[in-house]
């Protein structure tokens, strides 16, 4: 299999060679690197893991080649809307300052909003799940206001808050907070009463019951809420950046569209996809770490 792959790999750069120099060289270098890795893989166990990726890398290469052929070579697709891959590489190289700025602005906004929303949601959820009084007062509000999409608050938020940045943070926090609250709450409410019985007979205080029994037992639910909240926060982030904050990848996306700079748009989209999937992966890692006791019990 490895031999077959290596036979295929060198094909690609030749294909690209005739088109755009820089991109082709990069592709060629990558292909050679992978080919070398493939050869090494025969001998070193360390590369065995990489081997699993080969079919995907191969498919990716095919896709890039097809894209290249359809856009740059044959011109089958209308040009301003569908630029060839090297145009996107060009944008990333030429406009990287603005893109990096955009990434930082987006990340800052998202992180602030998400952390506030997750924290507030978590605390509220625990409080509702634990205290009947808190539940009595907060539950109706949650039921009424919670299902409203956070973006519906957008006009009001930009009007009420002093800056569009703080308004966006509020919206992101809201979008994150609702699922985190509800799932934390249901997690705490669903803790087996036997867990409390045991701790109580061993002399646990209320504080101990909340911190050492209810919260750890509810953690799997909390993480479901955190995942949902993260998804929601991405959506709100992009909308808020497009409509309010004059910074970030969402704004860059719209700006690029306004100038009909479609290559820039694809570049921004690509980066956004990396950012979002990177954050989700990060959260998965955190979960696997905190809930390692759960391995083999439930995987979702």
């Amino acid at each position, binding site marked *: 299999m490895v031999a077959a792959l290596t036979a295929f790999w060198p094909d690609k750069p030749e294909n690209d060679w005739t088109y755009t120099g820089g991109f082709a060289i990069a592709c060629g270098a990558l292909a050679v690197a992978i080919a070398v890795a493939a050869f090494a893989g025969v001998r070193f166990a360390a590369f065995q893991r990489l081997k699993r990726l080969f079919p995907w890398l191969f498919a990716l290469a095919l896709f890039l080649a097809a894209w290249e052929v359809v856009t740059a070579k044959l011109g089958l697709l209308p040009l301003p809307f569908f630029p060839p891959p090297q145009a996107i590489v060009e944008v990333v190289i030429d406009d990287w300052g603005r893109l990096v700025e955009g990434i930082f602005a987006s990340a800052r906004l998202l992180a602030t909003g998400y952390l506030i929303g997750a924290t507030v949601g978590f605390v509220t959820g625990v409080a509702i799940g634990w205290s009947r009084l808190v539940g009595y007062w907060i539950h109706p509000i949650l039921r009424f206001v919670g299902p409203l999409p956070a973006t519906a608050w957008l006009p009001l938020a930009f009007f009420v808050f002093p800056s569009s940045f703080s308004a966006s943070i509020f919206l992101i926090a809201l979008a994150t907070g609702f699922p985190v609250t509800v799932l934390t709450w249901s997690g705490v409410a669903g803790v*087996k009463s*036997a*867990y409390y*019985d*045991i*701790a*109580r*007979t*061993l*002399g*646990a*205080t209320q504080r*101990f019951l909340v911190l*050492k*029994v209810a919260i*750890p*037992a509810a*953690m799997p639910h909390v993480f479901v809420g955190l995942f949902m909240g993260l998804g929601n926060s991405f959506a709100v982030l992009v909308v808020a950046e497009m409509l309010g904050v004059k910074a970030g990848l969402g704004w860059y996306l719209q700006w690029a569209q306004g100038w009909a700079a479609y290559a820039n748009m694809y570049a921004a989209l690509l980066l956004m996809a990396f950012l979002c999937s990177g954050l989700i992966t990060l959260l998965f890692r955190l979960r696997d770490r905190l*809930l390692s*006791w*759960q391995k*083999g*019990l439930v995987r979702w």
Partner: protein
Amino acid sequence: MVAVIASDHAARGSTLTLREVSHRFDLEGQPLPVLDRINLQVGRGEFVALLGPSGCGKSTLLRLVAGLDTPTAGSLVTDGREIEAPDPSRVVVFQDPTLYPWRTVWSNVALGLEARGLLRTHRGRIEDALRLVGLTGFANAYPHQLSGGMAQRAALARALVNDPKLLILDEPLGQLDSLTRIAMQAELVSLWQRSSFTALLVTHDVEEALLLAGRVIVLSHRPARIKAEVVNSQPYPRHRGDPHFVELRREVFEQLGLDEAW
């Protein structure tokens, strides 16, 4: 003989008195009487076993003694004080081990010490308890990595670490294989003899009750009433083949209404 054992254990164990204790549950609007005027007197350091058919109310009675529930009528008194809430001097080994799945075996056993802020000073006890139940090698395992019997032994260790005055055992050896079970029974007896706590044991196993306890209380079908009391004053270790033991066993089976089986 009972008196001798009792005085041996006078130092630490607590007394327990149940006066006219009745309890009722609500099952879909219908009252379900479970305990019917139970009167019981347990002396300091005594080992009492409760025997009764499944669903008669044994676990319910133990929950009342633990202070997890309050009886519909009657009163429970320990060391001269009414039982109103759980207290770490009365530790329960529940029927279901219910270890916390997010804690390792070690920190499950540490639970009671941690809850009372004694972890720093009494850390060594955890190792001792784990050794006693034969789980030393599994200190860092998570509950889902244990077998049913191992989980039950871990639950036993979790209770023993707290040095209780009254140990409440709800079929603590129910899931063990017969060999481990015999070993743990002997272990429980020697532990009880050494640590001088009062023990209240619920079991389905007539032999187990007679091997461990000085007194076996036989309960009726639901609602549970005390049907009979069988005293076993034989010294420990007891032997299943002993003619007096066999005679006592026959007596208990008769009280349970199973004499035809013999």
